[in-house]
């Protein structure tokens, strides 16, 4: 088990364990050293108590103690500490193995269970061991003392068993004191390791009770006090002199305080564990912890089992959440696929649309639908409410809109029909604001109708902003609502801006709303530029950087009538209109090819089309011109349309008639504005640039009689026209 970061639902999940005592994880060497240190300190404390007793209670001269008792005790203490350290290292071997290796298999899991068991039972083992060892040590000590006296031929008084038992009782109490020191300190020392080896569900058979350590500590401290007082009474009886009540009271008070301190310490530890447990539960229920957080299991008792059970429940919730998250992700993908590409070019128009759902799925939507060679529709909508219900309504309405707008391109009528259908389907439960604009690319007009949607703006190239006012009810309220249509005239360079309330209601860090003023100020500051999508993206990124976490979906649709392209198209049409209108392609050959966007592959298709020109128009010398122009158009489709994505297709349609050949090259991209320069200064500048490129369109423009770009249901295309003229 590890507590490093984990990937979860694409979110960096960190298992933050709160240790109730804030203990840090010791290394193996540190642990060994600390174990030995704890044992030595515990024994030294015991020796100090013993020394105090012998000096104060038994009146043994310090000099005498120095001869044997004290050195023997010190040596014995260090030897015992060393022995206990070895014992601990041996018993905690599974833990040391865990310390070096991260468990990953089932075998490791059983090893972890063993390590946990050892960690939790070891303090108790030490306490029991100390009591037993104390008994043996005391007996051996007195036996050795008698043997030492016999060797020195000292005359020993006859054994007074009462005194001996009293002394042994006192010394055993000393060992219990040391034992309980060790018990509490080792429990504290091993706590970080218990945190590392978290018990799993099913490992709780035979766990201890929360009361056990309390009872052990309480009993031990009670025993210590009683045994010491017993020892004092025996000594007083043996000496025949009454002991000073002050001394008895002092000793009783000392042991009482010692016992109370230990008992209080153990109780405090439990209190901290329980408080940590409660705090963790509160944080988890209050959402203060991240998903996947686990509660530390710090004891092998009821509190630990409660934490473990809680963790199991949390795991189950996480799994459920995980599954829900995956489904929402899937729903998000489906929803995103329903929306058209965010960057589109249609004739002289460029569209940059962005839809940012607040959560995984949203209720905002937009659409762009081609209605014929000379018109298309744009739409923006906002379903009231959020989450899955809003997303479902959004998806249904998007499909409904596509069907309705193709049936009748009148925006007010489309809204009325969508309104009736939504009212019938949802009763009063659905309210959706929608704005629909139908753009006529020949007159550059927009027929706009709104169903309760926020007023769009028309922004002129000089930055002046016109608000298109149109008030009406959202769809889904009343079946009888009649929607009004407004006819708007766009001029080259104008931008028609549609948005949802998520943009307006964005809050900055200080709680200030972005508002209509913020939006108007922003869009009026937009200068004419070549890259509208980048302009919109940069603005949204700026908004993200300054605004607090949003609470609603944000959608923006910007339609621009591109000035430069519009003028070029008009110019080209003026040059060519005289010829083209007279020449209907009485087709006697047509063919279609598809190829992947791999530079070099264009040559084969271009050569085939060139050879068809030779075949059908044998008297002309156009085949090389057609071949080069088509190759350049295919390369543009690969590079500018499909962005050289090797999986994206380019489709080439060739239609060769008796007088006219039309070659149309489709790509899968959002469209691009072909910019051709006829200005010699600009051409010279291009030739002198470090990376002289962009000759493709110059070649197409020079070799073909006419060319245009457009969009239909198959995607964005460039079409080239060649006339059957000799000696071109």
């Amino acid at each position, binding site marked *: 088990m590890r507590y490093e970061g984990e990937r979860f639902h694409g979110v960096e999940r960190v298992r933050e364990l709160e240790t109730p005592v804030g203990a840090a994880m010791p290394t193996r060497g540190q642990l060994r050293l600390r174990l030995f240190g704890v044992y030595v300190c515990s024994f030294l404390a015991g020796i100090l108590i013993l020394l105090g007793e012998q000096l104060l209670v038994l009146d043994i001269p310090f000099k005498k103690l120095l001869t044997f008792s004290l050195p023997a005790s010190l040596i014995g203490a260090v030897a015992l500490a060393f022995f206990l350290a070895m014992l601990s290292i041996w018993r905690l071997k599974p833990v040391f193995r865990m310390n070096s290796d991260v468990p990953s298999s089932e075998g490791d899991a059983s090893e972890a269970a063993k390590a946990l068991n050892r960690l939790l039972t070891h303090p108790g083992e030490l306490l029991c061991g100390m009591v037993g060892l104390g008994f043996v040590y005391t007996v051996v000590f007195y036996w050795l003392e008698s043997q030492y006296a016999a060797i020195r031929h000292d005359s020993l008084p006859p054994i007074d068993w009462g005194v001996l038992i009293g002394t042994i009782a006192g010394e055993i109490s000393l060992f219990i004191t040391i034992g309980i020191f060790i018990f509490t300190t080792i429990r504290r020392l091993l706590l970080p390791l218990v945190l590392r080896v978290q018990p799993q569900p099913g490992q709780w058979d035979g766990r201890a009770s929360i009361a056990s350590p309390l009872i052990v500590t309480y009993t031990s401290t009670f025993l210590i006090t009683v045994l010491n007082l017993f020892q004092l009474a025996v000594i007083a009886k043996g000496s025949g002199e009454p002991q000073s009540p002050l001394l008895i009271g002092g000793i009783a008070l000392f042991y009482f305080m010692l016992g109370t301190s230990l008992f209080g310490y153990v109780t405090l530890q439990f209190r901290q564990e329980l408080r940590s447990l409660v705090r963790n539960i509160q944080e988890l229920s209050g959402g203060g912890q991240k998903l996947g957080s686990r509660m530390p299991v710090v004891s092998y008792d009821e509190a630990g089992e409660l934490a473990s059970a809680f963790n199991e429940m949390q795991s189950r919730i996480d799994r459920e959440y995980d599954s829900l998250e995956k489904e929402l992700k899937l729903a998000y993908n489906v929803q995103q696929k329903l929306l058209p590409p965010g960057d589109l070019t249609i004739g002289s128009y460029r569209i940059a649309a962005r839809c940012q759902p607040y959560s995984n799925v949203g209720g905002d939507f937009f659409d762009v639908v081609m209605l014929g060679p000379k018109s298309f529709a744009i739409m923006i909508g906002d379903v009231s409410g959020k989450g899955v219900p809003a997303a479902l309504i959004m998806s249904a309405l998007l499909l409904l809109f596509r069907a309705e707008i193709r049936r009748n391109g009148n925006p007010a009528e489309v809204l009325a029909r969508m309104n009736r259908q939504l009212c019938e389907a949802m009763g009063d439960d659905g309210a959706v604001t929608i704005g629909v604009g139908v753009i006529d690319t020949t007159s550059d007009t927009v027929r706009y109708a709104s169903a309760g949607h926020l007023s769009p703006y028309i922004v002129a190239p000089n930055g002046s902003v016109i608000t298109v006012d149109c008030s009406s009810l959202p769809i889904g309220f009343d079946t009888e609502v009649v929607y009004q249509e407004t006819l708007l005239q766009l001029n080259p360079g104008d931008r028609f801006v549609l948005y949802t309330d998520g943009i307006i209601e964005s809050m900055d860090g200080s709680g200030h709303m972005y508002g209509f003023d913020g939006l108007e100020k922003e869009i009026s500051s937009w200068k004419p530029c070549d890259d509208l999508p980048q302009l919109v993206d940069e603005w949204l990124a700026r908004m993200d950087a300054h605004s607090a976490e949003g609470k609603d979906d944000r959608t923006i649709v910007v339609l621009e009538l591109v000035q430069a392209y519009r003028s070029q198209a008009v110019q080209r049409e003026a040059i060519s209109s005289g010829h083209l209108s007279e020449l209907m392609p009485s087709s006697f050959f047509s063919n279609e090819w598809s190829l992947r966007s791999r530079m070099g592959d264009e040559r084969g298709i271009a050569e085939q089309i060139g050879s068809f020109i030779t075949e059908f128009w044998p008297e002309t010398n156009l085949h090389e011109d057609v071949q080069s122009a088509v190759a350049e158009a295919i390369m543009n489709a690969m590079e500018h349309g499909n962005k050289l994505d090797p999986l994206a297709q380019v489709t080439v349609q060739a239609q060769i008639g008796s007088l006219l050949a039309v070659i149309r090259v489709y790509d899968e991209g959002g469209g691009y504005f072909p910019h051709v320069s006829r200005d010699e200064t600009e051409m010279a500048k291009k030739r002198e640039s470090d990376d*002289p*490129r962009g000759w493709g369109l*110059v070649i197409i423009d020079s070799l073909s009689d006419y060319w245009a770009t457009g969009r239909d249901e198959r995607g964005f295309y460039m079409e080239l026209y060649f006339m059957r003229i000799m000696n071109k």
Partner: protein
Amino acid sequence: MELPLVIERRQFPSGSVLQLRGDLTKMSENELLDGLAGGLDESVRFLALDLTGVSYINSGGMAVLIRLARIARRAGVHTFAWGVTPHYEKLFRMVGLTEWLMLYPNEFAVMQRIEALDL
């Protein structure tokens, strides 16, 4: 499929001839510029491109030729070419490549011109 560009170099007293075969596209940029860099030393004053073996040139290839001729001119080297079909000659004129690259009908004409310049 695109034919890779193969370059052969030969020297004449005051310059180099690069004989190109294959397709001249954006993909051949590195080969061609490397071929140029390897042959530019102080003794070279003229660079002649034999394009007789080049069957396909697209706008990417023309951009490469412009770069090549510009680099050569900066190094004080005049660039000539022969073996260009009338169609590609038309395209070269369209994009202004002929301002950087002097086109001649054959090697003899190029060498005559170089000799005249060299005197």
